[in-house]
């Protein structure tokens, strides 16, 4: 089938006549204009932006495609440039698709930009169509939960959106943050991005923080203001990875007090035993099973025999599986 060409026409347009707010078609977020400016400065605009004529605002044109190019030329001090003007009858949905395809062929969009697309699509098509047709195009798993997540991203605060866009904050974590208040969200974002937590660490920690708040009847803010956490954060002698490790420990102790206590008791009990060199004893994970492990490192058969011999005469060995239950069992 022969496609109808766009009925656009080139026009020299004053930059001041163009509405450069990011709505309603823009899908660019947290970009670096410098490389583009450098390129335009050298070679000019190779691909002119597409505009629609405005009927009801002070500015005369709305940007359909080429938002970044226009920002770049404005920063370069251009007063006008050639743009393609779409006919007045050009449907807004088609304009959105034009920009979407323009972006998809040129670059990889970040998650916030994808969220902008999804948000804008809701003005024109049903959720079901977004899921089946557009989410695969945007490389988003096509299901309702993901749609809900992406629809919520645009409402997050700017610093959080930036963290997501630069992949410093996990999308899953952002999803959980949506149920929190602004102040709490920003605090968590700050914690996770300053110390460079891995996505898995973020995921675990945000759940702990929220669950500590819930079980202790405190706000997230109060949990995060924990004296120990604050001291670690402000300790100038500690490196960031050390701080992170210690904060995880503090949170874990608050989230799983009985489990952590059992682990400590077990460790204490074991360390009080004069175990032969190269022998390590581990409890079942979370003490859920009943099988304990012993690991013996040796280089010669004789060493193994010696260690087994010593082990077999070790006092207190038969109580080992009770160590975690508390000092009275040791």
């Amino acid at each position, binding site marked *: 089938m022969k496609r109808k060409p766009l009925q656009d026409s080139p026009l020299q347009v004053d930059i001041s006549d163009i509405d450069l707010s990011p709505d309603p078609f823009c899908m660019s977020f947290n970009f670096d204009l410098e490389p583009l400016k450098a390129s335009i400065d050298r070679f000019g605009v190779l691909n002119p932006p597409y505009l629609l004529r405005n009927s009801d605002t002070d500015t005369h044109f709305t940007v359909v495609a080429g938002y970044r190019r226009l920002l770049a030329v404005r920063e370069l001090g251009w007063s006008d440039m050639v743009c393609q003007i779409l006919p007045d009858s050009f449907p807004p949905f088609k304009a959105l698709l034009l920009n979407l395809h323009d972006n998809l062929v040129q670059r990889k969009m970040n998650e916030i930009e994808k969220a902008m697309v999804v948000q804008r699509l809701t003005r024109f098509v*049903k*959720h*079901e169509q977004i899921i089946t047709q557009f989410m695969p195009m945007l490389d988003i798993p096509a299901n*309702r*939960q993901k749609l809900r997540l992406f629809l919520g991203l645009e409402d997050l605060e700017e610093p959080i959106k930036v963290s997501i866009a630069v992949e410093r904050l996990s999308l899953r974590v952002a999803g959980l943050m949506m*149920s929190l208040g602004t102040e709490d969200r920003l605090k968590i974002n700050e914690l996770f991005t300053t110390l460079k937590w891995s996505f898995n660490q973020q995921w675990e920690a945000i759940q702990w923080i929220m*669950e500590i708040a*819930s*079980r202790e009847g405190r706000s997230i803010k109060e949990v995060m203001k924990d004296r120990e956490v604050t001291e670690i954060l402000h300790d100038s002698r500690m490196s960031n990875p050390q701080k992170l490790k210690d904060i995880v420990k503090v949170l874990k102790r608050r*989230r*799983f*007090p*009985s*489990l952590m206590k*059992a682990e400590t008791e077990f460790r204490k009990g074991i360390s009080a035993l004069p175990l032969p060199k190269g022998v390590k004893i581990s409890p079942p*994970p*979370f*003490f*859920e*099973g*009943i099988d304990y492990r012993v690991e013996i490192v040796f280089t010669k058969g004789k060493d193994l025999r010696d260690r087994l011999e010593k082990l077999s005469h070790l006092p207190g060995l038969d109580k080992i599986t009770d160590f975690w*239950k508390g000092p009275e069992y040791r």
Partner: protein
Amino acid sequence: MKQFTIRRILIERGAESDSLAKMIPKRLPDIPKELVDSHDLALPEGIEEMDKESLRIIHYKGEFLKPCPGTKRYICCGYQILNVGINCPMDCSYCFLQSYINQPSLRVYTNLPEKLDEIGEYIDSFPERIFRIGTGEFTDSLALNYLTGWTDYLIPFFSRRKNCILELKTKTSSVESLLKSRYRERIVVAWSLNSARIVSSEERKTASLKKRILAARDCQKAGFVLAFHFDPLLYYPGWDEDLEEAVKLLEKYIDPESIIWISFGSFRYMPALKWAIKRRFPKTKIFDGEFVTGLDGKLRYFKPIRIEMYSKLSERLKKWYEDLGIYLCMESSDVWKQSFGWSPKTSPSLSRYLDHRVRKLMVG
């Protein structure tokens, strides 16, 4: 009898000629009906993912009677599930169905009456075995009974058999059809119980604790054997005092002698369920406890916490009556031992223990 809101009836192609498929729509004459394909699962915009207000009538092609899917790592009671349908009109925050089912709507299987003879033949072919059968695993045994008439045909059917019992497990107080029935033999009416606080905060649209116990009392007075299931037990500040109140209600209204068993199970969940629940019940506090990954991959309370709950509750119940047939659902032998001072050690041995209860209380 509580009736739930049903906004539409979806009759799957292939089910139209089943007897139940003809009867159910007659019981809801004003509700719109639609003939649908089995793969047509799209929900109209705005309908919540579990779609608990649509009744889907299905000609079920799978097995109706199946053993409860226990795991080797924990001791299982050897129950048989009679699959009458899936999903339920009540809405407990902790319900495992939220991540278990991948198809929406209340789904009832209309060809069950036609399959009963086959099920009967199977049961009869093992005369030495006792089949403990329940319908309350994937749905509530009584919540939709006013539409499906399950008790009208299941009770006479199982009551006549020699080597089985049918346990109807519910969180409703809808026992009218049971009370009208003239059968009592081999029917156990069971209630899931929890503290009144958990009932009101986590078990939406269910009957209150007191109403459940009063309904149990009515059934007991009418000659039914009873069972209770404290499952899922949830650990929170004051859980023990709250459960004490629940036990006091039992003491007040129930004669312990005709209780066939009382089971305990603590809240446990597959990891995916947490997110299904958080999505639907963001404010729930059921995840506040200390959960660790169990041997079957499910998250469970850290072992000493489970033991504390089981031992305290059983001690309290035993003060009421010594011989209640208390057992644990999906627990390890060491947890049994530490909670009760004894353990059946293996699943077959727990089965034998429960079969013994059946013989003692039901099979003459």
